[in-house]
């Protein structure tokens, strides 16, 4: 582009003008990242420490940083507490997250396929509608949604925290972007020349080609659903079948709160997501970097 590009630079200043992503990270880079990572991980680690300790640990000065041996004891208390339904809440969270994830994957990949590869009048306008719905704050209709659920007789049931989330605008958008590039037009066209119906094309050509995208969207959806708090709290607080987030807030409510118990519960409710991050972390990173959207 300029003279500098072709001029041989002295070795010392080799980094000058080189794109950052081609510059090797120095010790300061690693130190900075390690410090940031430590701060990110510390609350989780400390949650584990308190979850494994006795009552003293939480108010010890200077704070304990070594896990104790009381985890089983604390867990036993959490799981046997009346009125909190902790064990059931974990199962409920699994049911809700799994159903929402499966349905999101199915509906979003179908819609994404239609928007990416099929031609029909109004397609582009409808796609813009999908994108616009992304920007609507979810607080806006919350009161009316509650009343609507009441009319259906779903208030206080798991159905009420599943049905509104069966499909997501972000999912449709993400799938459309992916399918546009991952599935060649010629493949779709030639399959149809051979007389394959649309659903057949979806099943035999599109689905196998978009497995990576399904993994990404599935992980993001599962994490988001598992962590959902406000709507499940409105719907399920005080019922015998809360989700684990609602059960956690119950655990932390009351006049006298036992923190080793609360954090033991918090730890259990976090572990499934940590496992997901460990197994599918790269996919989650990819999903976010390809343009994921907060909740």
């Amino acid at each position: 582009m300029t003279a500098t590009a072709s001029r041989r630079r002295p070795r010392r200043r080799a980094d000058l003008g080189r794109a950052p992503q081609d510059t090797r990270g120095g010790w300061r880079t690693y130190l900075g990242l390690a410090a940031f990572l430590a701060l990110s991980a510390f609350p989780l680690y400390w949650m584990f420490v308190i979850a494994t300790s006795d009552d003293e640990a939480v108010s010890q000065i200077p704070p304990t940083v070594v896990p104790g041996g009381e985890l089983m004891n604390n867990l036993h208390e959490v799981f046997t507490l009346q009125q909190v339904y902790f064990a059931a809440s974990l199962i409920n969270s699994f049911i809700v997250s799994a159903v929402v994830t499966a349905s999101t994957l199915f509906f979003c990949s179908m819609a994404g396929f239609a928007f990416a590869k099929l031609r029909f009048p109004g397609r582009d306008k409808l796609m813009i509608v999908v994108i616009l719905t992304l920007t609507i704050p979810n607080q806006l209709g919350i009161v009316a949604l509650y009343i609507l659920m009441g009319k259906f007789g779903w208030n206080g049931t798991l159905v009420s925290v599943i049905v509104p989330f069966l499909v997501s605008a972000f999912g449709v958008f993400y799938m459309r972007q992916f399918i546009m590039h991952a599935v060649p037009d010629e493949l779709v066209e030639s399959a149809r020349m051979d007389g394959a119906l649309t659903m057949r094309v979806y099943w035999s050509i599109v689905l196998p080609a978009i497995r990576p995208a399904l993994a990404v969207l599935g992980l993001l959806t599962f994490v988001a659903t598992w962590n959902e708090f406000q709507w499940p709290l409105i719907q399920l607080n005080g019922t015998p079948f809360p989700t684990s987030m609602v059960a956690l807030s119950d655990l932390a409510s009351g006049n006298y709160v036992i923190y080793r118990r609360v954090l033991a519960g918090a730890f259990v409710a976090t572990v499934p997501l940590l496992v997901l991050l460990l197994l599918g972390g790269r996919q989650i990173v990819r999903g976010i970097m390809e343009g994921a959207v907060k909740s």
Partner: protein
Amino acid sequence: MSLTRNAPPASATEPAHHRSPKSGYKSRNWLHRFDNKRVPYLLISPFFLLFALFGLFPIVFNGIVALRNWRLDDPTLTGWAGLANFERLLHDEDFWNALVNTFGIFILSTVPQLLIALMVANLLNRKLRATAWWRVGVLLPYVTPVAASTLVFAVIFARDNGMANWLLSLVGFGEDAPLDWRAYKWSSWIAIATMVNWKWIGYNALLYLSAMQSIPKDVYEAAAVDGAGPWRQLWRITVPMIQPVLVFTVVLSTIGGLQLFNEPMLFEENPAAASGGSDHQWQTIAQLIYKVGWKDLNLGYAAAMSWALFLIILIVAALNALATNRLGGGRR
């Protein structure tokens, strides 16, 4: 974004498969016509049906609820309230207090969050060993349930023997009278903003990183002429080049930050109260809506508040996007 780039005009070309069925059986013809004309709509219909029912309808209906008397504890008290709910809102000290709190926490969380995210992204934007693992690592807070992490922070910010106070005492602050984080507006805001920052910095850093990596490399070569070091490189080249994603994150943080609910709820010593402190020091609007609707059981009034919150979000998001455009770019 390239929303329409690959889409040819819908009616200009006949789809290839229209001329396809070589074996011209009547029934297959009918089936294929149905497949061509109707099936695409069937495929996208689940989204639109579910959105119409659980997204659009509640928003419209919310407007009606806001204009009516609608109480959960007294189903007989119905009928139109006119603008009474909105009038009440104007004179409701709790609402204005919650508005101030929401904005205070919003600013304390958004500004450091995005700045630090930029720094972290800049660090990640190098040739690193185990690149993938650093990126996965910064997502630890993102996957942690807010309910769980907030409860940890509630312990850290305890008045007696809390870890935050212990750290402060190490630097000689509050040794004899430990800070009661929940007692004052400023301290409770800082505590809550810390939780929000903790959760979202890594996520935003990845968004920035993804934008940074798509900056053409020759831009950096060109800048080497005036000897820009890494620091100036960041501010003079990288930041202006990723401006669209900056605007995007600002808008996202605005939408999320002004609806803040989980952290203030669970920071409370007794979350069931939903009061946001003994004197509502940190009660946010979303929390107030929850309290008015499901503790005071006044759904009509809660609906009116939702509308007010929506309006505020709209205005602030627009202003923010505008300001970020100006600040970030300076070009055009």
